[in-house]
């Protein structure tokens, strides 16, 4: 660690991992409810478990991005963080707001939470992924503004690199597109149309800039390849991302009341969305093959390569599977979507945050890399989590194909609930893979406490 103030990232990383655990536990509850419908009912209804599962994911990824940025920007800018105190204060505000919101989900019926938080004054609640009370959303905006201010000021007083510029564009974009979550018209078509400006333009737009920048940073550090080469790759990748991804938003506009022409625009542009992810895979492997040093942190390199491969498979291949409108007509809103969602989020965003944590955490704890024993354990967790997410995806894909056949293609279509009963084998297998994922996560956390010989940073 070159600058003392980079250490604020540690708070964010620890908070992120804590929420990661909550996300997985609630995921397992939901998975079980898919086959044992009344499990934990009425204490934790499915919709509540799902809100915790998805919201915890979003918040921990945001914390991971913030932690990564607090670590990365001072080092790239070659100067201390503008205000470490502000960064720490914002962490606690964010954590307390997230915890209070989750407690609200779990302890009060959602309609009660909407009433308590004055949702009628400015209704923004009750839409997928944006379930947070309006006041929590405002809190997120405050935290994001303070965060952007702190990092922009840091960057302005120091060196400006392509990596920090791309990261900051991604983070500014993230904050700006979040503002669409405050727009909730009565007209459901407009509501859904602009809802995607937050959701799609995050995960298939600006978040990919953040991903690319973090990956580029770690690759420079672990491979020693020239910055110029890496920065050119980064620009090429994010160019491909945005020229395909922005109009690619159209693949959400096939069946929500919007005009037919979106089927052409959405199909063509989103069919190209795998290209930047493939470029990312080539990028990661090329840089590691051309490495000029043997960095002692093998685990971080493994995570970086894993991000390249899994983001291409999850976001690229599984996204392409159902993105063309004639295919999507049958797959839309089935377990195929769920399959894609799981591998894309894990492969792209979970893995890039874990890459950064893997690289930065040992340095913040005063060593170049963890002991060999700890790294072996971390790599075990990599394989356990990655292989089980592949199986979760495969089982959900199988469930999805069967669901489409029974409910939408067969000569006598089955009802939704009867179809679900036919899928239970795959749901049980998915739950089993989920348990392995949890074991992988436990191994991951234990690896932080694993001692052994280490070299000084």
């Amino acid at each position, binding site marked *: 660690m070159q600058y003392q103030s980079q250490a604020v990232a540690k708070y964010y990383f620890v908070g992120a991992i804590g929420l990661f655990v909550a996300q997985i536990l609630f995921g397992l509850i939901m998975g079980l409810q898919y086959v044992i*419908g009344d499990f934990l009912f009425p204490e934790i209804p*499915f*919709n509540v478990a799902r809100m915790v599962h998805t919201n915890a994911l979003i918040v921990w990824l945001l914390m991971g991005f913030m932690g990564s940025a607090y670590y990365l920007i001072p080092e790239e800018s070659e100067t201390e963080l503008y205000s470490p105190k502000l960064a720490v204060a914002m962490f606690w505000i964010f954590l307390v707001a997230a915890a209070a919101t989750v407690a609200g989900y779990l302890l009060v019926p*959602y309609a009660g939470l909407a009433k308590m938080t004055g949702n009628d004054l400015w*209704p923004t609640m*009750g839409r997928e992924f944006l379930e947070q009370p309006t006041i929590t959303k405002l809190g997120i905006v405050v935290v994001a503004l303070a965060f952007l201010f702190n990092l922009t000021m840091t960057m302005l007083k120091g060196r400006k690199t392509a990596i920090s510029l791309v990261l900051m564009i991604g983070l500014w974009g993230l904050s700006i597109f979040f503002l669409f979550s405050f727009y909730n018209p009565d007209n459901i078509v407009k509501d859904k149309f602009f809802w995607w400006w937050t959701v799609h333009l995050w995960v298939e737009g600006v978040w990919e800039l953040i991903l690319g920048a973090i990956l580029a940073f770690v690759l420079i550090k672990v491979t020693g390849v020239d910055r110029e080469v890496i920065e050119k790759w980064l620009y090429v990748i994010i160019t491909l991302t945005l020229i395909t991804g922005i109009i690619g938003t159209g693949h959400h*506009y096939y069946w929500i009341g919007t005009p037919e022409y979106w089927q052409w625009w959405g199909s063509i542009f989103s069919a190209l969305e795998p290209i930047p992810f493939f470029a990312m895979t080539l990028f990661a492997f090329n840089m590691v093959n051309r490495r000029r040093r043997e960095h002692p942190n093998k685990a971080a390199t493994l995570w970086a390569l894993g991000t390249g491969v899994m983001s291409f498979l999850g976001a690229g291949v599984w996204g392409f599977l159902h993105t063309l409108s004639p295919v999507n007509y049958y797959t839309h809103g089935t377990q195929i979507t769920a399959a894609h969602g799981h591998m894309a989020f894990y492969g792209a965003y979970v893995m890039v945050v874990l890459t950064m944590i893997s690289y930065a955490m040992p340095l913040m704890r005063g060593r170049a890399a963890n002991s060999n024993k700890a790294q072996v354990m971390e790599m075990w967790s990599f394989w356990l989590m990655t292989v089980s997410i592949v199986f979760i995806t495969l089982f959900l894909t199988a469930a999805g194909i069967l669901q489409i056949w029974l409910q*939408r293609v067969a000569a006598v279509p089955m009802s939704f609930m009867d179809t679900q009963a036919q899928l239970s084998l795959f749901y049980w297998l998915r739950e089993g893979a989920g348990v392995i994922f949890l074991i992988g996560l436990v191994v991951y956390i234990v690896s932080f406490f694993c001692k052994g010989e280490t070299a000084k940073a």
Partner: protein
Amino acid sequence: MSGTFTTSTARNIFFGGTIFFALVFLALTFQNEQIIPQRDQRAQLAANPSIAAGKKVWENNQCIGCHTLFGEGAYFAPELGNVYKRRGPEFIKAWIAAQPTHTPGRRQMPQFNLTDKQLDDLVAFFKYVSEINTNNWPPNIEG
């Protein structure tokens, strides 16, 4: 990746390409706004305040946490964009009022304690969404 292709060339292509495609997207959005009035049943929405109230009931009880609407949401419970056509108004109200079923092992829908007015509003909302032009999605009445 050498010779004349410098980092600043790459950066310029990034900014130029992004701005160009963002502008195309904005133009498409503008066009979209011109066309959707023929598809989104806004006359109905303006004439009947029950629909907007029904959307509030829909949101305040987080129905999207289990169900889908036009295929978006959770995949735990049936599609509701066309439920008005599949089940009709009276069945919908009776079903919601009768929850949970307490059938062992079956997926359970909570009791939301909706008033008669809220049930009517919700049904008005379901009627409105079922009449929006969704390019013939879903493929059949089962959703």
